[in-house]
């Protein structure tokens, strides 16, 4: 059953019960008051009749000491007819509860008489022939005789009124219920709208549309639920995007990897095939064998680099206290011979907690890249300086530069700025990927600032002694 129907049904049941019980008590209360009044009227009537009877008895000439039964009958008949406009019902009985006079149509049973006592009157509601009457009984003393005077008052109207009240009330209640059920249906439809919107959104998301969001139409708990749902959807969407990005990176890696494999493989297979199937002259024989060797070496270098990256990812770092000077001395030694590109070193002395061999490889990679990007006769600068919370290295060139979208991809394996993947500088496009992995181990990050045509600056900061994060990051 739908939630909106449940709300509707519950509210209707509650309303029906409330109206029903309330209505019953109200109508009944009105009825009781009317009945009370009628009973009061009936007792008043019987008082009046008693007084009239006693007066009539006194006025009878005292022929006898005792009131005769015939006289009583006569008085009874007189009393009955003396009512103004309305007929009185009365019955007179003697001491032995024997009926002396009764109006026509008076009930026959005399059970009420036994309840009548001196100074008390009795009454009861009786229902002969589908009509309601209040029957009263009272004791009358006249000329030494004790008589019973009974009256009957028609109260059918009161009962009929109650029945009418109930009928009107039932109709009214039905009308109210119908109206309120329409209103409640609209209200519950409105209340459950956020739920329906959420359901729709959830279904769409299940179908794969992760950009779908539920519309927030209220500020209450439902609104908050929608907000939380949308927030969750955002997180899920982000994660999906991240995963997709990762899958893309991985696919690119595989595509690049197979591409990088194919070129040297073509050469190796082709030359080997020539060697085995043809009689080549001395020169060509050497050339072919040499190509097989160099291309094989290229494959080897690539596989070693790949292995480096994979090993580095799982490497447990053991940092030593290292003099910055020793790192720069290593680079200076390598570039001392280099003539076509001037490499300038400028650094402040300092001590850092690193694995020197790994950091040397990072610096060398960055410097080699900077040289590759530079024209012959250009300049590459390598800086080192103490910062507040660590030691900062920077490698700056004035070469070709990298566009912003390439900056993001440049650290991916096999990525090369030159689209042709020209290997005139003999790289595999794995150097920066390795640098990033090594720096990650040291709790550092490679920052690339570059402008096409102006030059690039690669810099990173090794956290200093003050930071404890180094050790924990080293283990991850």
């Amino acid at each position, binding site marked *: 059953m739908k939630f909106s129907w449940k709300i509707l049904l519950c509210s209707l049941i509650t309303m029906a019960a409330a109206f029903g019980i309330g209505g019953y008590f109200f109508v009944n209360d009105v009825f009781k008051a009317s009945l009370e009044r009628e009973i009061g009227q009936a007792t008043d009537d019987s008082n009046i009749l008693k007084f009239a009877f006693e007066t009539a008895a006194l006025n009878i000439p005292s022929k006898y000491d005792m009131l005769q039964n015939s006289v009583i009958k006569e008085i009874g008949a007189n009393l009955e007819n003396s009512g103004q406009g309305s007929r009185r019902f009365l019955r007179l009985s003697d001491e032995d509860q024997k009926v002396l006079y009764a109006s026509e149509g008076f009930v026959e049973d005399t059970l009420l008489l036994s309840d009548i006592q001196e100074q008390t009157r009795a009454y009861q509601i009786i229902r002969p022939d589908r009509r309601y009457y209040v029957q009263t009984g009272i004791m009358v003393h006249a000329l030494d005789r004790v008589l019973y005077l009974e009256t009957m008052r028609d109260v059918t109207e009161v009962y009929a009124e109650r029945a009418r009240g109930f009928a009107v009330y039932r109709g009214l209640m039905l009308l109210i219920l119908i109206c309120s059920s329409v209103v409640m249906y609209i209200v519950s439809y409105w209340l459950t709208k956020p739920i329906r919107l959420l359901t729709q959104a959830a279904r769409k998301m299940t179908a794969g549309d992760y950009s779908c969001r539920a519309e927030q139409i209220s500020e209450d708990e439902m609104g908050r639920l929608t907000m939380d749902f949308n927030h969750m959807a955002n997180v899920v969407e982000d994660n999906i995007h991240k995963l997709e990005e990762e899958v893309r990176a991985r696919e690119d890696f595989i595509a690049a990897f*197979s*591409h990088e494999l*194919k*070129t*040297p*493989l*073509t*050469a190796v*297979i*082709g*030359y080997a*095939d*020539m060697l*085995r*199937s*043809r*009689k080549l002259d001395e020169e*060509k024989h050497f*050339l*072919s064998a040499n*190509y097989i060797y*160099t*291309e094989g070496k290229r494959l080897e270098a690539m596989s070693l680099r790949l292995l480096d990256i994979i090993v580095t990812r799982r490497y447990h770092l053991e940092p030593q206290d290292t003099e910055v000077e020793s790192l720069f001395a290593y680079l200076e030694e390598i570039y001392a011979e280099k003539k076509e590109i001037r490499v300038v070193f400028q650094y402040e002395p300092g001590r850092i907690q690193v694995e020197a061999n790994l950091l040397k490889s990072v610096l060398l990679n960055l410097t080699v890249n900077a040289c590759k990007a530079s024209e012959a006769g250009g300049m590459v600068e390598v800086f080192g300086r103490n910062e507040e919370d660590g030691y900062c290295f920077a490698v700056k060139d004035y070469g070709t530069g990298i566009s912003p979208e390439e900056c993001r991809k440049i650290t991916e394996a096999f990525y090369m700025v*030159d*689209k*042709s*993947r*020209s*290997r*005139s500088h003999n790289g595999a496009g794995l150097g920066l990927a390795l640098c990033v992995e090594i720096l990650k181990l040291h709790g550092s990050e490679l920052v690339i600032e570059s402008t096409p045509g102006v030059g690039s600056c690669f810099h990173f900061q090794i956290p200093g002694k003050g930071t404890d994060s180094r050790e924990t990051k080293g283990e991850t």
Partner: protein
Amino acid sequence: MIQILIVDDEKPICDLIDMNLSEAGYHCRSVQDGLSAIDLIEKENFDLILLDIMLPGADGFDIMEYIKPLKVPVIFITAKSDVHDKVRGLKLGAEDYLVKPFDVLELVARVEVVLRRFHKTDHILTAGDVMVDLEALKVTKSGRPIVLTNKEYGLLVLFMQNKNVALFKETLYEKVWKDEYIADSRTLELHVQRLRRKMGWEKNLVAVYKVGYRLEI
């Protein structure tokens, strides 16, 4: 002499193709970047261009635009093997598409097919006194016609296209029978023997130990 231009950024690959096509009797030039390729195409006439797609300077698709009006047939050579690139290359008007790593024999065969399609090559193969007309499918020895079966003809053409080259049994079988070679199968040997007898090549068509056969002319 048929002029072929090889454009590939890898010197080893250029040299490999150059060596093989030169052996097959073509004249080759090779360049390693797109811009010098365009220069050369404008300056000189070529009968066929072998084009790599990823090139420094201008890529293969760019160069293709330059070649189009010249109506020089082009075979793309690339390491990219996805269908999208293949279709793009062929749509641009390339005659064929070769994916690295390729078989040298296959390269030579494809070059020949494309050249024949453009009637740039002689459709007559000769070896000594034997002549094969590739279009009329006619084989003659000293002017005398020789009747060959389909498979024998296939073998003959392969040998004559690769004179003085040792052809592997696997290669021969795969090219002619278009099926995987099963070691110890005598089918190939029987056909080669019959071909030898029919052509009178008992001395020329020699078996190469552990490799296959070589036509020595």
